[in-house]
């Protein structure tokens, strides 16, 4: 073994000791398998013809950019863990990915984000009107695979999935509205509880709750108790979001989004809420003034000042600890739901996701 390998192995062992068992390689493998399956099944639903260069090519852009497809993979794995076949869940998985990408297009416009998956955001490339229209079209395109579910799931189960889609869309819209409202009105006096509520709706429903519920509906032919997936999905989704927010503050070229973009956008993260709560009166006033200004007036100097303030109050470690606590709660809920199911790759994958979220770059 070379010296370099020794060092790597030692580093890996230290990390393993510090943070518990590493994520099994199976997580990356199964993500890739599901990604290819979903991409293949998505093709017929992406639309062609008509004003394709102005619509369908835009709609296909984000899905082709190489996202990890965590959400559809969770759906397929959950369905299989409960005894279904991939083919039973793949249409729902396609719909989940299309919905996710549709929301991303809208979010990027609303947040004035510049980058998405390592390339300029859709509205930066094509302008807001065409991007908005493509996002709308993707929402509608996602309905077709859900309707096609009737062919293999039967009408009742297909309707159950459609009803849960409506619930997810409503929860997500409410969560997004909370965050946008806080930013528009420059609300800073927030508690961690407010953040959890916003993340539950904005992130967890689409990222984990809905994919697991749909997977369980399919796997149990509609007999699953869906409420238990809200707890598991919330904790995993919230841990995922906290980690995503932390990554944004330490972004490098692998991250795919604008470095410190969340600060430029004034996103109410756990770190920002903690920093505001911990700051002095003067610091709070300055923070509020910076975040109250339009994004175009927020300069790099302001953003770096906020980032340093976060360091001073140890807000990143505060959020990191909470993220780990939420992941622990997710593990607890996982055992309650999946513990009774027989061992399988899919079960191991779902459990592995809980540590995988902390190893993302």
């Amino acid at each position: 073994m070379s010296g370099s390998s020794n060092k790597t192995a030692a580093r890996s062992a230290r990390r393993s000791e510090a943070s518990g068992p590493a994520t099994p390689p199976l997580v990356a493998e199964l993500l890739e398998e599901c990604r290819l399956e979903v991409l293949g099944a998505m093709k017929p639903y992406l639309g062609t013809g008509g004003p394709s260069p102005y619509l369908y090519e835009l709609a296909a852009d984000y899905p082709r950019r190489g996202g990890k497809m965590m959400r559809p993979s969770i759906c397929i794995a959950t369905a299989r863990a409960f005894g279904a076949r991939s083919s039973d869940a793949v249409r729902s998985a396609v719909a989940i990915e299309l919905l996710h990408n549709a929301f991303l297009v809208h979010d990027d416009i609303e947040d004035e984000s510049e980058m998405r998956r390592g390339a300029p955001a859709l509205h930066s490339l094509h302008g807001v009107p065409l991007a908005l229209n493509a996002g709308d079209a993707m929402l509608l395109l996602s309905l077709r695979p859900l309707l096609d579910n009737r062919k293999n799931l039967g009408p009742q189960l297909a309707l159950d999935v459609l009803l849960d889609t409506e619930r997810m869309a409503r929860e997500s819209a409410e969560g997004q509205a909370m965050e946008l409202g806080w930013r528009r009105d420059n609300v800073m006096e927030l508690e961690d509880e407010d953040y959890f509520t916003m993340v539950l709706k904005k992130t967890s429903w689409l990222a984990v709750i809905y994919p697991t519920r749909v997977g369980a509906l399919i796997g149990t032919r509609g007999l699953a108790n869906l409420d238990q997936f809200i707890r598991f999905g919330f904790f995993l989704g919230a841990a995922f979001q906290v980690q995503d927010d932390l990554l944004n503050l330490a972004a490098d070229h692998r991250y795919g989004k604008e470095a410190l973009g969340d600060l430029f956008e004034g996103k109410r993260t756990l770190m920002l809420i903690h920093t505001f709560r911990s700051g002095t009166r003067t610091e709070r006033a300055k923070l509020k003034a910076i975040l109250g200004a339009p994004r175009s007036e927020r300069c790099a100097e302001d953003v770096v000042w906020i980032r340093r303030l976060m360091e001073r109050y140890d807000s990143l470690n505060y959020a990191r600890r909470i993220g780990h606590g939420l992941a622990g709660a997710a593990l607890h809920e996982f055992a309650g739901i999946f513990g009774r199911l027989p061992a399988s790759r899919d079960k191991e994958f779902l459990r592995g996701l809980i540590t995988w979220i902390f190893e993302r770059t």
Partner: protein
Amino acid sequence: MATSKSRMSREEPERTGPNRMANGTSNGSRTSGRAETARGAANHREVIKRAVELAYHVVDDHIRQGQQAAERLSAGTYTSGDFDDDLRICLDRALKLSKEWGVVGVDFFAALRRMAGFRMGPAPAAPDVAVETKSKRRAEVKFHLRPGMSRFNPLVPPLHSADRSKEPLNDVHFEFRDRSRPVLVVNIPDGHPPGVYNGAIVDSKTHEPGGFISVRVLEQDRR
């Protein structure tokens, strides 16, 4: 020499007590490194404990709200006719949401509402009855019990296919294993032909109908 105006001064503290922040950057009295580390670790644990408790509070409250909404939606009297209503409500909400988001393809939802393919079958299982399917083949079980049948002692006569050449399903029955909810046991013999088998659920004493049941036997085997 600096004038009094340019002299640096400490900002007026706004707190009236020590700042015992959970992140361990306390400005309290000086202690040994080890004691401070121990106190820091305890604070970290407290942060996590408090956050997880708070998170459970948030999610449990959310689940309660969802349950209340679901109860209002079905009002405890879910019948086969409600499926069309639910679909209409679902699509009306989607339509409203799409309008709020400025979605252009509103006609799609309107068309969806008219889709004849979404005429639904019988209602899902009543929530207080468990279903146990004993079969090598995959099967879907749907049944409906008339509400308000508290003294009803259910009996399931053989379930028949519309195709008379197929044998009926003869072993479908309710079991009351303990004081908890009853279990509807559906036994499908190996090699039983695929198809839809329907029948009534009757009172074992009066033979008056109290509901209906439909079992769809699929071609695929269970995994």
